[in-house]
């Protein structure tokens, strides 16, 4: 299933992504003389972890098939951030509040997992509904005003650096990405995720508890969104009810651009990480070149559509046949 050779489409994908990243770097340095400087590195890496964790969660949810998707990651980020900020204003220690926030994220993810896997709502609709509900809750409970006044010592995570590397990149994003990569590639659970994504019937018959596995991944997506919320909170020192708006789209973009097959069963953490680097480099490059934010949105949209088209071009004939399965195959 996962032969490590250049004949393997997912390996080809990694080379392609790396090439694309180099192209983006070249274009960015042509656009702005400020891009190719050491000071760009922390600036660039500062943006990576938040969208990175959401993208990795999205990758795992999509990978396990179903077909699975989590549109509510951005809304979970907003809601957990507010919950942590609110707990702190109640007098809870900030680190205890963060732990409770992670638990809360797990709970929000569990709601998604149960709705999709145990009640049987198609993932697209279930998470669309929770996207409404969570982001609505975030807005309604705060009346739209941000929660501020977090302690100064809490900024070490989101604003601190070690040798040009932001702390939250080094201490949260890199470990999480490595651990999940190892789990996915070398451990039994990882094999089960690929099996469930490739053929859920077969996976079920050999004794994999597919529904429990997928529910777990939705919970993981919630936990990663909570971690992202905490990093966001530490960076901006305030919890905004609209902090995660649009992030669901970005997280799907990096997962799909990274080579995750939208119906599950194929994809790698490494691909997603490369895709995150591409998207972030693009954003930072355009920002340094003083190009309007709108262009970034437009380019990301084209990347999203194009990356699926490229999947088709890179020799996956089954995509055409399985069109429409995104909405669910059980008729």
């Amino acid at each position, binding site marked *: 299933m996962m032969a490590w050779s250049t004949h393997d489409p997912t390996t080809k994908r990694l080379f392609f992504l790396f090439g694309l990243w180099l192209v983006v770097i070249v274009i960015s340095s042509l656009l702005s003389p400020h891009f190719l400087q050491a000071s760009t590195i922390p600036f660039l890496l500062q943006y990576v972890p938040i969208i990175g964790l959401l993208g990795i969660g999205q990758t795992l949810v999509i990978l396990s098939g179903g077909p699975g*998707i989590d549109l509510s990651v951005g809304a979970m980020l907003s809601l957990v951030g507010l919950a942590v900020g609110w707990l702190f204003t109640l007098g809870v220690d900030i680190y205890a509040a963060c732990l409770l926030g992670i638990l809360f994220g797990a709970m929000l993810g569990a709601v998604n997992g149960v*709705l999709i896997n145990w*009640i*049987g*709502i*198609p993932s*697209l*609709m*279930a998470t*669309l*509904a*929770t*996207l*409404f*509900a*969570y*982001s*609505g*809750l975030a*807005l*309604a409970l705060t*009346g*739209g005003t941000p929660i501020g006044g977090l302690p100064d010592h809490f900024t070490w995570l989101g604003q601190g650096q070690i040798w040009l590397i932001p702390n939250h990149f080094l201490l949260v994003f890199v470990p999480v990405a490595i651990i999940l990569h190892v789990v996915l590639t070398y451990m039994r659970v990882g094999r089960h995720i690929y099996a469930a994504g490739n053929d*859920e*019937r077969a996976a*079920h018959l050999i004794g994999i508890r*597919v*529904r429990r596995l997928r529910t777990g991944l939705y919970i993981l997506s919630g936990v990663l969104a909570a971690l992202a919320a905490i990093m966001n909170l530490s960076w901006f020192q305030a919890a905004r009810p609209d902090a995660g708006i649009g992030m669901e*789209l970005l997280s*799907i*973009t990096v997962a*799909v651009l990274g080579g995750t097959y*939208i119906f599950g069963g194929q994809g790698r953490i490494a691909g997603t990480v490369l895709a995150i680097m591409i998207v972030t480099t693009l954003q930072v490059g355009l920002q340094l070149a003083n190009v*309007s*934010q*709108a*262009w*970034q*949105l*437009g380019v*990301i*949209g*084209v*990347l*999203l*559509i194009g990356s*699926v*088209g490229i999947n*088709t071009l890179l020799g996956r004939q089954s*995509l*055409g*046949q399985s*069109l*429409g399965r*995104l*909405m*669910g195959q*059980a*008729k």
Partner: protein
Amino acid sequence: MTSLSRFARDAQRELILVLAILMICALFASQSEFFLTERNLTTVLRRSVDLAIIGAGMTLVIMSGGIDVSVGGILAVSAIFIGRAFEADLPAPIVVIIGVSVGTLLGLMNGAICAKAKVPPIIATLGSMYVFIAVLYLVIGGTWISGLPDTLSFLTRGDVAGIPVGVFIIAAVYGFCWILLHRQPWGRHLCAIGNDEGAARLVGIPVDRVKMQAYALLGLLAGLAAVLYVARLRNVEVNIGTNVALEAIAATILGGANIRGGVGSLIGTLLGVVFIKLMQNGLVLIGVSSLWEGVVIGGLLVVVLSIDALQSRYRYGRSL
């Protein structure tokens, strides 16, 4: 089986929705004496027209097994073209034609990406939504297109024989879609594609063409909604159309359409739109902040989807 009980079975979802609408009406009326006034209800009606006509198109697209989350973007881009056309002093009929054709073209583009490039509809329309928002920002930036002429105001504020023009627009759109769906081979083809695309292709239905037509029709209706939007507010601002797609999908699902395709009801969607709009209006009138809208619609969707899912599991058994 008597015809009455057959009607009750076939129109179960619509009957439930009518009951639900009556119930929330009773609830809101008991809390606010202003709710059941003619003035309030006509206001709600006039503001529902955009969502209602987009809902009709969304029903067709969802029945074909697709989805379009970019309708808000189509509405926004069409509105920009309408605004610019107005600023160029073009006559009103030309402006309407421009708005509707822009919408149709954008919808057709979505359809082509889904049908020809084989990109799953959710991905394709998410991507085009980004592009449409980008266009919106690039063209109008942080400013508004405002102070547009009121030559089209009769579309939203006018009455014919005491009935708001919007009613006729809704009737025309739903009548047209109903005929397409129930009196034309096209509707059969659409249902067949939504039920089993492979089989539809094998029996010779032009699958790609029908799908593209469904998306183009949705785009056309979004363009029409943009005309009504500009006619009503006489400006174009940056956050135009943000919630339209989600509300239209919610109304369609409330109305009994199956997100997996093949099943849907235009009347159900219309009732879903009425329900959502009355809910939004009533909540504000009884003093609940409009910020709760998202929670209410989301919660409602969860409940309806859960009931649907549990029902179909009861009927067809569990898959895993």
